[in-house]
Structure formats: structure tokens, C-alpha cells
């Protein structure tokens, strides 16, 4: 059949002769007949108004490269932004594994045809379990925000209570997410911070805690960078009142920092983006939820949990879904929250990362981050009228820098830094007005002394 119609490389049966032959086989004169159930008034008339396509792959590549070329990445600019998305080094093997077509394009197969997917995710949760020293870890949730929000709902289901306590220092975006997710039936109460340390004001916690509180949640390190040094006391106060202690943690800190399970956390959550994911403009986030191996906790997870089991062949490892009946896949609205596609590939990648790093790598990276952030803080404090480290509690990779006395706003300072090809810290002046003209700066293992010194020198110039 002579035809000028495009034969699409992605669509084998778009070849006109094949299409005609198949129509014949289904006893249809045209494709339109296959749509006979769709009433005429619901049919879209004409052709959609979409851009003219680039039918050649080369043309498409040129088009996308041109648009993405308008971005200025952290390869070109020095970056000191964190605030939930972090620039760490991504080992080549992480990219190699998550680019493999088998993992990249698999989905929801059975433990037989997708054994490797089950094993890789079981190993990811198992390595996270070692990092966290907890026996149960979920496959990835969408992101750390979802993990926190779900953990709060889990705590309410476990305790049968419906009030939760959160520190006022958590990021506004996380607070917004939690408010939306709990709005229906759970009351959110915020805890004041201790002005000196930044951590939870223990007196305020004592005032607010009661037998009605389902959970006390805090971050360690916090959104504002400082460590919560009273973790054990907070957990004790929660437990004395029958509440669950939930701690959100930066997993890359745990080579050197005690896992929250050691100071009383019952549920630990966080985001694994630091463990081998590129920043991807915020597309590398994935969350985890961990707890002890107690039935009352396990049965409240909404997400899938993969377990290791024997097969009929001795010595052969198999895998399957643990307690599937708790999920919405099994019981629709009677299951726990919901389960669906989330961020599995990032979990596999984080597993690769942890296997590459090992205990020594995790220790060295934690140490290296502490060195750099402390060096940067000391150097910042040498700049006239700049005050780095608003809180006395030690920090991990981020800290708040106050510019109130410089006579310049953070927006002005960041604008000047941008002109010198530096992305300055996240402006906190709108997010936390009580911190004045402040910014959250982030330092990781990717920063050399020269990078940090360049920031300091430029800041001095900008503020001069």
C-alpha cells in the first residue's frame, strides 16, 4: 500500500500494510470501529494542537539539548544549597546499575520472573537496617516527606490516639505536607525550640505531652542543621506517656552518628537522596520507614515489605510480600493508607551506594563532612558582621548564617554571589522570619578547601 504515512520507530504495527492486515483479522474496516462504544459527542474533533514533532532522533536530541542548555548546573557554579536535596558524590557504579534496562524497565512482576528486583530491594532494606540498627525497613516511599507523614499516621493507628507533636524548626514544606496529609483527623501541635541549642524546648514538651499524644516527632540533624542533643530525654518523655517517638534522620550521617534506635526512637524515617542519587532538580528523593520487628508496628506499614523465604530447592533464596493483607492492594480502603508505585529504583541505587561505601566509607564520609562544615563555619565567623551557627548545638552538614548586621538582605547577598558563579545558602528570611536575614548553607564531601575559601573570599567582597 503506497502511503506517505509516518512509520513510527516506537510502534512496530504502524507500518501501514501490517495495520491493514491486523484490521482485517479483527474484522474491522477501520480503527474507528474499535472505538464504537465512545459516543460521538465525547469524541475529540480534529487533531490536538500539539507542537510539530521532531520525528528523527537526532532532531529530538538537538531540541532537548538546546532547552536543557539554558540551565546552569552545579557543575558550572559552586553550590552551597542543601535544605532537603544534597550534592554528594554519586559513584559511577550507582549510575551503571540504575541505568541497566532490566532494572530501569521492570515493574511489578512476580518473585519468579522478577527475582532480582525482590533481592535488590530486600538487600537495600537490609543495608538500611544495619545503618539504622532496626529490623524492619520499608521499600522506598515517594520521599522523606511521605515517610514522615505516614509514620505519624502509623503512630496514630498503633496508639489509637490522634494528636502529634512536631518541633517548630521543621521546614515549612514538610510542615505543609504533614498538614495536608493529616488534616482530616489528626491534630498537629508544634513544640517550641530552645533558643540556645535549637532543639526541642523540654519544658514545653513536658507541658504538652499527655496520654492523648500519639507521637513526638523530631529531626536529627534538624532542617536547620543542628543536632538534637536531647534525643534520649525526648524519647523517654514520649514513652512515659505511651507515645511513639519518631525520628527523621539523614542516613549519610550514620557512619559516625548514633542511629536513633539507640536513643529510643520507635520509628525512624528519612530521605535516601544523599545515598547515590543525583539532585535531579529535586527528582532524586525517596523515603524510608524503619521500626522494630514487632507485629503491632509491621501490621501498620502501608508499603510493601519484602521478606526472604526458602524455596522447594534446598539452599535457594526466595522472596515474597510480607503480610500483604495489610495493604490497599489486598483490601482497598480497608488497608493501611495506600500502596503504589513510589521510588523503587532509588532504593536499589541506595543499596549499591551502601555496598560500595561499606562501614569504612560511611565513617570517612561522615567525618569528612563534619570537618568541612566546621571549617566553613569557623571561616564564616571570621567575616565581619556575619554570624554562623545561630544555635550552640553541633551541626552536621548545614548551619544557619545570620546576615542581619551586614546591612544586606540574603536576597541581595545571594544575587551578588550568583554573579560570581556561586549558589549561596537557602534564604530563610521568609520561611523563618524569627531568624531575621538568615541563610542555610550546606557543605559536603564534594567541597574542597579551595571551594570553601572561594566562598569566604567572595562573601567578604560582597559584604565589603
Amino acid at each position, binding site marked *: 500500500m503506497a502511503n506517505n504515512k509516518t512509520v513510527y520507530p516506537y510502534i512496530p504495527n504502524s507500518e501501514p500494510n501490517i495495520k491493514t492486515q491486523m484490521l482485517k483479522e479483527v474484522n474491522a474496516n477501520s480503527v474507528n470501529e474499535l472505538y464504537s462504544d465512545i459516543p460521538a459527542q465525547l469524541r475529540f474533533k480534529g487533531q490536538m494542537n500539539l507542537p510539530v514533532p521532531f520525528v528523527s532522533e537526532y532532531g529530538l536530541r538537538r531540541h532537548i539539548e538546546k532547552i536543557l542548555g539554558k540551565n546552569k548546573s552545579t557543575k558550572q557554579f559552586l553550590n552551597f544549597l542543601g535544605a532537603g536535596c544534597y550534592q554528594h558524590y554519586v559513584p559511577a557504579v550507582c549510575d551503571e546499575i540504575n541505568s541497566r534496562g532490566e532494572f*530501569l524497565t521492570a515493574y511489578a512482576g512476580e518473585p519468579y520472573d522478577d527475582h532480582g528486583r525482590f533481592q535488590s530491594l530486600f538487600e537495600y532494606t537490609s543495608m538500611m*537496617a544495619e545503618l539504622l540498627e532496626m529490623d524492619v525497613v520499608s521499600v522506598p516511599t515517594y520521599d522523606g516527606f511521605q515517610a514522615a507523614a505516614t509514620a505519624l499516621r502509623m503512630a496514630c493507628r498503633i496508639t489509637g490516639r490522634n494528636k502529634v507533636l512536631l518541633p517548630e524548626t521543621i521546614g515549612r514544606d514538610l510542615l505543609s505536607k504533614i498538614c495536608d496529609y493529616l488534616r482530616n483527623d489528626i491534630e498537629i501541635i508544634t513544640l517550641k525550640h530552645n533558643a540556645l541549642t535549637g532543639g526541642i524546648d523540654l519544658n514545653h514538651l513536658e507541658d504538652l505531652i499527655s496520654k492523648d499524644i500519639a507521637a513526638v516527632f523530631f529531626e536529627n540533624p534538624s532542617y536547620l542543621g543542628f543536632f538534637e542533643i536531647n534525643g534520649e530525654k525526648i524519647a523517654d518523655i514520649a514513652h512515659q506517656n505511651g507515645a511513639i517517638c519518631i525520628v527523621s534522620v539523614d542516613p549519610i550521617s550514620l557512619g559516625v552518628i548514633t542511629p536513633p534506635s539507640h536513643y529510643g526512637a520507635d520509628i525512624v524515617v528519612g530521605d535516601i537522596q544523599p545515598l547515590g542519587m543525583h539532585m535531579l532538580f529535586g527528582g532524586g528523593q525517596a523515603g524510608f520507614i524503619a521500626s522494630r520487628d514487632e507485629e503491632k508496628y509491621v501490621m501498620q506499614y502501608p508499603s510493601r515489605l519484602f521478606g526472604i523465604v526458602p524455596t522447594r530447592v534446598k539452599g535457594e533464596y526466595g522472596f515474597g510480600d510480607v503480610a500483604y493483607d495489610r495493604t490497599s*492492594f489486598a483490601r482497598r480502603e480497608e488497608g493501611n493508607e495506600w500502596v503504589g508505585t513510589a521510588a523503587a529504583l532509588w532504593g536499589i541505587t541506595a543499596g549499591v551506594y551502601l555496598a560500595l561505601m561499606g562501614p569504612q566509607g560511611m565513617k570517612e564520609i561522615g567525618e569528612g563532612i563534619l570537618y568541612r562544615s566546621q571549617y566553613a563555619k569557623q571561616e564564616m565567623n571570621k567575616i565581619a558582621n556575619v554570624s554562623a551557627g545561630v544555635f550552640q548545638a553541633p551541626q552536621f552538614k548545614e548551619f544557619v548564617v545570620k546576615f542581619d548586621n551586614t546591612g544586606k538582605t540574603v536576597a541581595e547577598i545571594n544575587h551578588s554571589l550568583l554573579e560570581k558563579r556561586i549558589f549561596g545558602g537557602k534564604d530563610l528570611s521568609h520561611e523563618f522570619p524569627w531568624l531575621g536575614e538568615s541563610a542555610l548553607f550546606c557543605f559536603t564531601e564534594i567541597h574542597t578547601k579551595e571551594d570553601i575559601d572561594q566562598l569566604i573570599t567572595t562573601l567578604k567582597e560582597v559584604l565589603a
Partner: protein
Amino acid sequence: MNNITAERFTDGKPNLRRFHQASWDEPIIFELGQPGQRGILVPEVEEGIKFQVGDPFKGIPDSLLRKDPPELPEMSQPAVLRHYVHISQETLGVDCNIDVGQGTCTMKYSPKINDQLARMTELTELHPLQDETTVQGILEIFWRFEQMLKEISGLDRFTMQPGAGSAAIYTNASIIRAYHASMGELDRRDEIITTIFSHPSDAACAKVAGFKVITLYPNEDGYPDIEALKAAISDRTAGLLITNPEDTGIYNPKIAEFTRLVHAAGGLCSYDQANANGILGITRAREAGFDLCHFNLHKTFSTPHGCGGPAVGATGVTKELIPFLPVPLVDFDGEKYYLDYDFPNSIGKIRPFYGVAPAVLKAYAWVMALGAEGLREVAEIAVLNNNYLLKKILAIRGASAPYAEGKRRIEQVRYSWEKLYEETGVHSDELGIRAADFGVHYWTSHHPYVVPEPCTLEPTESYSKEELDEYAAIIENVANEAYADPELVKNAPYNSTVHTIDHYPLDDPQQWCITWRAYKRKAQKIPV
């Protein structure tokens, strides 16, 4: 010399593949490596920093310092690589099989060029909080892709924030809640109506958002029953969350009547278009009267499924509901792209930042490779392939496609092996496990099994006629085996990575082992 090629055919038809999946008998990663081995070295701290800082742990309370290192594997780099290559080979991605067996999942080809483009450092190395002037390219992609979805759906604004389809359904339920709250009617409007052949998340997400769920069942034609809808609707109705075509692949021609009835009662209508593959350019949310909808970019729009994410559930609304969308939205003032947070009635944040940018980029690139005509071709071929496969499957002994007999289906079909089960004692899931012996997936259905002994197949546009023939031949072979030798099927798999799994420990709290750490304690009896 034999004619080897001729030996691969019987009676003019190709023989089934003598498939065996990779089976490396791979140890668990904790069993690999040796103490002291390293997979990667981290950047060293320069002397200048070390000298100035001194003790990096100074000031950190002893109680916060980790005493015992985490018991992670200690492996060389090639050992890590080989381990993961082995287990990747034990995973059946779209790239290696005729993936029509995971019905509802739209397992289409994910173009490699799009993956390559998403690996450009101009995307991978972008921090989401960079100054807007430095991220104009990616914001442009978000904005351009939104314009496409507006045209494809007929709705007025989209957010890319939800992290997949279920998050999008939840977002829609949350917007419905916010809308009724703004009208002062939330106290009264506490019911969401959905259907049993819509995704379980349509029910589950509505419940999390605070609604009571009413589920409609199909009538004998396979459509959700309109009389049941009328009975369910009241002044308590907040909204309708519905798929069309549903998992059966049957298009509900009365859908506009459904939305009209719900609107008349003051409710909103949300279209679960997780899978819109069969109707691109054919029919839209707007014309059917919907107020909200969502598309799974990893389904219809080809971004790879990634073993289950990362993903995007692009969520769209009509003009009236724009104020409630999650913030920020990506906007364009004619000169520059920017993030707009100025929506005081927004439901707030659904996830950190703005959405899975690489998925948005890949979906955009996919549409840009096809255009309007190409998208329609996607839909037409997906539907043609489905009806072709339908004919082939119905010719197999023991198979049926309940409801709407003799009618066309859109993009997928929920089949039933009830007859085969009654005649052989072989269940649908057992047929599926046997099918895995030939290198393909096969999926039953979500629960509950309204269609007895269900099986859901969705061929998409990505498979050739020969490949559909091959898939049907595999299923025919397995069904014939069920009749000839049921035990052969029941004892499968034989050619998979592993053999029949003992499921019992998975539901026993004393035995389940969700991590290696728990396994060491419970199975190996190693004291922790």
C-alpha cells in the same frame, strides 16, 4: 549441515522459545566480600582543613557518636558491580520481554534517547533551589509539558508534583476536600463514590483524605451500574473517582451522564487516567465532564517504570479548581519561566520541590517525538493490538472475556479462566507462573477477584504482530498443558531464576524476615 532454521518451526509456526531465565544462585550481598575490602574511596580531607578544625567530633555529645560501625558489606568495586549485574539479569524488564502480561501497567517501550537526555548534567546536577534564572531550561520543559497535557485532557492547569498515580489520586481527593471546605460544605459532603474496577487507590486515597467510600459494581454489560450510582448520590456526595475504560477495557458510554448526575448533586468528578493509552486524541476528560484528572507518566507517557518508581502522577484541574493545586506551579510571563507560590487556598505541598524532573523530561521528549498524529497512532495501535490479542486469547480453550460479549475493548482486557479452572483445577495464578517459564509476565488482577480466575493483558502499541502471536502461543501452550497435565502447570516454574516459594513464613510474625538482620536473628539464630 542441518537446516537449523527449519528445525525452529513446526507446521509452519515458530516453536516456543526454549527459555531459561538467568539463574546465578546469587548469594545475599552480606555473604560477599571480605573485611577491609573497599568499593569506593571518598574524597580526602585536606590538611589545611584538618589542621584548623582539629577534632571533628569536638562538641558532639558522646551519646550521639556511633560506637560500633554499621555491619555493611565490605566489597571491592568489581564484586559489587558483578553482584548487581547478576541480579539485574534475574529481572524481566520491558527491555527483555514481550511485556503484555502486566495488564493495567502499560508496559510500553521507554525510548533510550530519553534516558540518555535525562542523564545530561544540565539536569542531573541541578539543585531545586537554584536561582530561577539558572534553571530556565528545566522550568521550560515543565511548562511546555503542562501545555501538552492541557491539550490532551482539555483541562486548564497541571501539577507534576505527585510522585506517581496513587499520590495523584490522593492529591485529587485532597483538592476535592479543599473545594468543599471553601464552599462551607465539607462537614456534610463526606462521601466519595468509586467503582470496583477502578484502581484500589481510588478507594484507599479517598479514605485517607477523610471520605467514606461507596463502591459501585458492574452491571451485566460490564459498566458501573448507573442505577447504583443514582442510589449512591446524595447531598453527602463530595465526588466521584472513576476510571474509564475500567480494568476490563470496556468504555462506559454513559460516562457523561455519570458526571452530570454527580455535578447535579454538587459533587466533583475526578478521572483516573493513570492509563490513558487507548484514548489519546480520541476522547478527553473535558468533554466527559470531569473537573480533575491525572496521568501516570510511567504508563501512557513511556517513562520507564524503574521497578516501581520514581514516577510522576501529573494532576490536572479545571479553572475553578486551580486555586487549590499544590504549590508552586510553573508559569511563564512571556519572557521567563518562574515558580508561582501565590495560591493562598492551595492544599500545600504533596512532595518536596516540584516533581520528578527526569520523568517530566522523558515524557516531554516522548510527545515531541510523536506529535498529535503520533499520539493518535499510539492509541489506535494499542487498541488494534488489544483487539487482535483478544481474538487470539478467546480462541484458547478455557478462556473467556466476561461482560460485553462480542464488543470491542479499548486498551486491555480482563480475561477469566473460570472454565479452565473448573475443567482442570488449575488456577489463573498458576497459569501465570508457568508462563514465566517461557520468559513473559502474566498478571491476574487486583483484589477482590470480581472476575473469577482473572488475567489482565494489555498489549500497548509497542509489540509487533509476531510478538503478540508469540505471547498468545505461550498462553495457548500453558492452557493446553493445564488440560493435558495439570500437575505440570501447578508445579511450575521450572525455567525461572528460582523454584516454588514457601509463602507460609511471610504471614507469620515469628518467622517473617523483612531484612537480613532479622533473618540472622530468626533463621540463623545469631544473637544480635
